[in-house]
C-alpha cells in the first residue's frame, strides 16, 4: 500500500468517523443502532489485497479509537480490526474473491461487523469493562447485523468505484 493511498484511506476513515459520530448516531434506529463506519471499514478491507487489508484495518481501528464516547482503551479497536483484516486477507485466498458476488459480499460484511462487535465485547470483558446485560448486547448485535444487511447494498457500488479510483496504475 503506497503512502499516498495510506493518506487517502486515513482521510476517508476520518470523514466517515465524523459522519458516524455527528449524523448517523443521531438517528434512533429501531432495534439498536447502525455503525456505518464499521460496515464501510469492513467493506473496504474486503476490497484490499493482503497488506492493504491489514493496514486499512489498523487505520480504521485507530480512527475509531479516537471516539470520545468510547469507554474502551485506546488501541482496542485497532487490535480488533487489524486481526479481522488479517482473517479477511487470509480467507480471501482460500475461499474466493467475495467482491465478485454482491450477495456473498453483503453476508461477509455483515458477518465481519458482527465478529468485530463480538470481539470488542470479548476483549472488553477480559479488561473488565461493563458492556451491559447479555440481552442488551444481543440486541445491539442483532440490530447492527440487520441494518448492515439492509444498508450495505446501497453504498457498495459507490464504494467499489471510489476504491478503484483510488488505486494507482501499478496496483490495478
Amino acid at each position, binding site marked *: 500500500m503506497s503512502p499516498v493511498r495510506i493518506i487517502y484511506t486515513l482521510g476517508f476513515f476520518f470523514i466517515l468517523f*465524523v459522519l*458516524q*459520530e*455527528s*449524523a*448517523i*448516531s*443521531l*438517528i*434512533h*434506529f*429501531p432495534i*439498536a*443502532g*447502525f*455503525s456505518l*463506519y*464499521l460496515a464501510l471499514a469492513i467493506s473496504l478491507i474486503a476490497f484490499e489485497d*493482503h497488506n492493504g487489508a*491489514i*493496514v486499512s*484495518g*489498523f487505520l480504521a*481501528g485507530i480512527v*475509531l*479509537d*479516537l*471516539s*470520545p*464516547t*468510547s*469507554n*474502551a*482503551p*485506546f*488501541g*482496542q*479497536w*485497532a*487490535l480488533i480490526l*487489524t*486481526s479481522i483484516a*488479517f482473517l479477511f*486477507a487470509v480467507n480471501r*485466498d482460500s475461499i474466493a474473491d467475495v467482491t465478485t458476488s454482491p450477495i456473498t459480499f453483503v453476508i461477509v460484511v455483515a458477518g465481519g461487523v458482527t465478529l468485530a*462487535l463480538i470481539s*470488542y*465485547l470479548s476483549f*472488553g470483558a477480559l*479488561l473488565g469493562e*461493563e*458492556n*451491559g*446485560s447479555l*440481552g*442488551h*448486547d444481543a440486541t*445491539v448485535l442483532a*440490530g*447492527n447485523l440487520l441494518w448492515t444487511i439492509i444498508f450495505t447494498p446501497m453504498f457498495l457500488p459507490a464504494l467499489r468505484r471510489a476504491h478503484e479510483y483510488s488505486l494507482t496504475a501499478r496496483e490495478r
Partner: protein
Amino acid sequence: MARGGGNRSRLLLVILLVTALFFVTLDLRGVSLTKGSRSVTQTILAPVQRTVSTIFSPVGRFFGDVKNFGKTNAELKQALATNKLLKSKLAENSDTKGQLAQLKSVLDLAGRGNYKVAAARVIARGSASSFSQTITIDAGSSSGIRSNMTVISQNGLIGVVKSTTSSTSIVLLLSDPSFKVGVRIARSQSVGVLSGLGSTEYSLVLLDPSGTIQTGDILLTNGSEGNKPFVPGVPVGVVVGADNSAASLTQTATVNSYANLNDLGVVSVILSAPTTAPSKPLLPTPNPTVTVYVTPAPSPVLSPTPSASPTKKK
C-alpha cells in the same frame, strides 16, 4: 503470493498488532497522550456535531415516527393538507417550542432544588460501534462545566459529565452498564445502589439487607461528598418490581427512570447545589389532567320492596 510477500505480510501484521497492544497498555496505565487525543477529537467534532444536529434533528426521529404511523394516521392526513412552506415553518417552531418547554421544566426543577445550573442542548448521541450510552451537549468548561457533575432533565437525573472540552461535554447516561448511583427510597430512607443495564430498566440493590422495597417506591439521589458526582435529592425513578425474597442476601428491585433518555432535547448540568438535600422532594410535576365531575341526575324514587327494606326483629 510469493514466500517473501507472505513473510512481509506477517511482519506487518505483527508490527501493527504490537503497536495496538502498546497503545492499549499506555491507555490502561493512564498515559495522558491517548486521553488527550480523544479530547482533541471531541474539540474537532464539536462544531460539526452542532451544525449537523441543527440540520439533522427532524430526520433523527424518522424511524421512531414510522413506528407510530398507524396511531397518527389521522393527524398525518390533516397535516398533508397544509402547504409545504407552512409545514417547514411549523416544524421549526415545534422544535423550538419543544426545546423551550423542556428548558422551562428543567429550570423549574433546578429552581426548586436551589441548584445553579448550566442549560445545554443535546447535539449528539453515543456511537453505535461502542456499547457505551452517552450524549454530547453543547456546553463545556467555558460554561463552568467540569467532569463528575450531575446532569438532569425536566424529570430528574439523566447522568453525569464524563469529560469536557471548552464548548462541549460528554454525559454518561443513567442507562450505561457502567453507571452506578447511590439512591435512597423516599418512603423508608433506605439506601441502595442503582445500576444501568443498557436498556430502559435499571437494577436497584438495597445496602440494608433488612430493608424492604415496595412497588411504587420513589428513588432520589443520595448525594456524594462535595456534591460530586451527585447532588442529593434529585428524582431518579420509581420501583416497578421488587424482589424481597427472604432467601436472598440482598433486596433487589427493577426500576424505571423518571427521565426518558430517548427524548432528550435540553438538559441542565448542576454547577453548584446546597449541601443538604432539598426540604421537599423534587418529584417531577405530572402533566395537568382534566378532571370531569359528574353529578348523577335525580332518578325517580322507587318504593322499596318488602324483602329489601330493613326490618328490625323484636
